[in-house]
């Protein structure tokens, strides 16, 4: 249910895997590569992943969501490797009977993935500079 993908994320296929006649609600989150971060123009970025632990921790987060919220299905995929502006970095989808739990679980999953899963982002700027993004929490520029 949690995975790391080195290829373009195919949201529609992921979503189809969540089809369920009991479900009344699907909430999805997509994280996209922005053209600006802290005032710097971004050209592309790279995600580096510690795969063994990222997969375990991602899976744990989905299990927590399943326990905490009354949901039916859930999927999260995170990209690795190089991405251009506008490309999808992460996809989260959650289904439930009523909509409240799907919203809560989707937000929980993306919050926890960003805080806990060992993935690091290096930004390459139009100026030619590049750098590892320092820390979401410190810099308060979570998307």
């Amino acid at each position: 249910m949690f995975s790391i993908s080195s290829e373009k994320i195919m949201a529609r296929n992921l979503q189809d895997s969540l089809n369920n006649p009991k479900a009344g609600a699907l909430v999805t989150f997509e994280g996209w590569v922005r053209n600006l971060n802290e005032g710097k123009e971004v050209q592309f970025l790279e995600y580096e992943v510690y795969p063994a632990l990222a997969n375990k921790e991602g899976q744990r987060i989905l299990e927590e969501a399943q326990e905490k919220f009354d949901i039916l299905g859930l999927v999260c995929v995170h990209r690795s490797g190089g991405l251009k502006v506008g490309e999808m970095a992460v996809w989260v989808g959650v289904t439930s009977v009523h909509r409240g739990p799907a919203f809560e679980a989707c937000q929980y999953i993306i919050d926890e993935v960003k805080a806990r899963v060992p993935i690091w982002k290096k930004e390459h700027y139009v100026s030619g500079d590049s750098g590892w993004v320092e820390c979401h929490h410190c810099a308060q520029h979570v998307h």
Partner: protein
Amino acid sequence: MTSEIHIQYFAILRDERGCSEETLSTEAKNAAELYEELQKEHGFRLSQQDLKVAINDEFTSWQTPLQTKDKVVFIPPVTGG
């Protein structure tokens, strides 16, 4: 007592170390001592309290005793998503 430890480096630590993995012999009793040793040698800018540590692909405490063949990863603040 000396143990043989495998280390993997990611992100800023990989850049600062100049390689992504190494195996070394150390007298460090735990990950905290090991990081101190490596930080002195390579000048890592992140301090131990900025990092988490994993042994054999599980998060663990800095005080867990190291054992020969352990795989250690120091984990800089994560920035996925």
